[in-house]
């Protein structure tokens, strides 16, 4: 697959396009413009960026206030801080108070690699899923990133956008459109479905390609919107392929996998099912690629997991 840009770069470029069309669009940063690739935005639209310093609680509170006064606000900070230190502001100032701010968690998951657990966000889907009135989105590639940023700017409710920082491949896709809350079909298949989100869609796709050579045809869905979940696509995948593997750069507790499991169990849809993510343990050290490999999130290991699930009776 052709490697394109980091989703963060596409986010920043898309935001600048939107800012040029809407003078009420503001981006608020917490000493995070560099890591968010927003330095060019700051140069091109200095009147539309607000810096609050390293103060994530204030970042979200101020964003809520700006939105209360009619601004279309993107509050940008590393996902690890944004969804932990300022979680109460997200819950109360945005979600409970119904302020349609887009909270952008950058360098998410284990993007920061060897910087360690302080800088990892493997909890954000779980905590935000339990808060009413927020859309949770983890785009898989540059296309989904651009579409998601545009959709967030139009949203009338709070949105959480989650971006990693490594360059991502352009994923082929069966569906050409993009809609929040509707999973994107990346690859068709009848034997098994990978339900992945964010930067784990690419390795799921690689696994599907490897398995195709062995005659195992996997469907790949980019479940870019973790909440609200595309229930219909998941039911359909379970009933049509009978085997599901969820893949996420997140704890196995409370993320995409458990959301899918809950849905299928409550609807009484039987299928073979495996959650691939981060176990409830101290995270291994290393760079993102090494950490992914350690937890089985690469094409080879996901293919192995798929074979095991296919063989299991």
């Amino acid at each position, binding site marked *: 697959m052709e490697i394109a840009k980091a989703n963060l770069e596409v986010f920043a470029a898309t935001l600048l396009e939107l800012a040029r069309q809407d003078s009420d669009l503001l981006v608020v940063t917490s000493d995070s413009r560099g890591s968010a690739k927003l330095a060019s935005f700051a140069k091109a639209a200095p009147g539309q960026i607000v810096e609050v*310093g390293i103060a994530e609680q*204030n970042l979200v509170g101020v964003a809520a206030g700006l939105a209360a006064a009619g601004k279309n606000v993107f509050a940008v900070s590393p996902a690890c801080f944004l969804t932990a230190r300022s979680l109460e502001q997200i819950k109360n100032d945005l979600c409970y108070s119904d302020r349609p701010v887009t909270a952008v968690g950058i360098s998410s998951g284990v993007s920061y690699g060897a910087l360690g657990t302080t800088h990892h966000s493997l909890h954000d889907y779980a905590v935000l899923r339990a808060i009413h009135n927020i859309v949770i989105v983890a785009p898989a590639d540059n296309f989904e990133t651009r579409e998601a940023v545009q959709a967030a700017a139009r949203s009338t409710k709070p949105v959480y956008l989650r971006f990693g920082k490594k360059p991502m491949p352009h994923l082929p896709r069966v569906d050409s459109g993009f809609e929040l809350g509707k999973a994107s079909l990346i690859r068709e298949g009848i034997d098994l479905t990978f339900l992945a989100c964010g930067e784990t869609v690419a390795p799921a796709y690689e696994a599907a390609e490897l398995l195709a050579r062995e005659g195992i045809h996997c469907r790949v869905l980019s479940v870019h919107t973790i909440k609200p979940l595309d229930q219909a696509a998941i039911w359909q995948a379970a009933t049509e392929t009978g085997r599901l593997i969820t893949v996420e750069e997140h704890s196995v507790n409370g993320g995409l996998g458990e959301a899918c499991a809950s849905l299928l169990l409550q609807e009484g849809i039987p299928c073979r099912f495996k959650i691939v993510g981060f176990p409830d343990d101290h995270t291994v050290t290393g760079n993102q690629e090494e950490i992914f490999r350690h937890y089985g999130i690469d094409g080879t290991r996901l293919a192995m997991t798929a074979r095991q699930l296919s063989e299991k009776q």
Partner: protein
Amino acid sequence: MLTESDLQRKSVQYRKELLRLIKGCGSGHTGGDLSCLDILNVLYNRILRVSPETCKSPDRDYYIQSKGHCAEALFVVLADKGFFPKKDLETLNRYGSHYIGHPTRGVNGVEQNTGALGHGLAVAGGIALAGKMDRKDYRVFTLLGDGELAEGSNWEAAMMAAHYRLDNLVAIVDRNGLQITGSTEDVCQLAPLDEKFEAFGFAVQRCNGNDVGELVRALDTVPFRPGKPSLVLAKTRKGKGISFMENVAKWHHGVPNDDEFSRAMAELEAAEAALA
């Protein structure tokens, strides 16, 4: 415009309505409600450029109640100003009501859902910043409890307000000196608050927060310094207006029994007669 005497009478009326409300529903933050009621009275009857007709206007003054637990005091004043019918307050804390123990935007006139402490100043700062960006002349007022100033988020917001020279932002501290555990100075020393806020870049004025005249004179002159956010350090008494509730920590969220309610109302009747 209400005169100082009118405002004094209003304060007594509000206290009577507040106690009836708290007694009726069996819960409320009585002590803090009573300490901040004169501030709310002066804000809504003399200072704020907002009314039921203009409360959605982009040019209105904003009020954010950071000490959200004193919602009952706010509701009494908003009802009196006609933001909603007074009879709506009969549903306070009832199943399905918007009128609950903290302000929510489901109540007409409430700008932001509050209740968790340390949130109001940042939100108010955001609104004030938008006002500066849009060259609007609205002001943003926020009422902070003194106990809540232990929340670090206030100081993040204070730094930002000074950094952006938000002289359209006015923070009022209800400095009653008590929190649920006891004296604010015993729990974790807050003093000297005036020097702290000055060091953070605010222009500070002290006043008696239970004296409507002093409050009017302070709030009428905001901003205290061009280019600086204003802070009114309003010295108040928790439980103000009811002798046996004043400065007693147990009235933080105490509800009067029948005897205490009768005695409190008698004191307020006497205060009203003295002002007639």
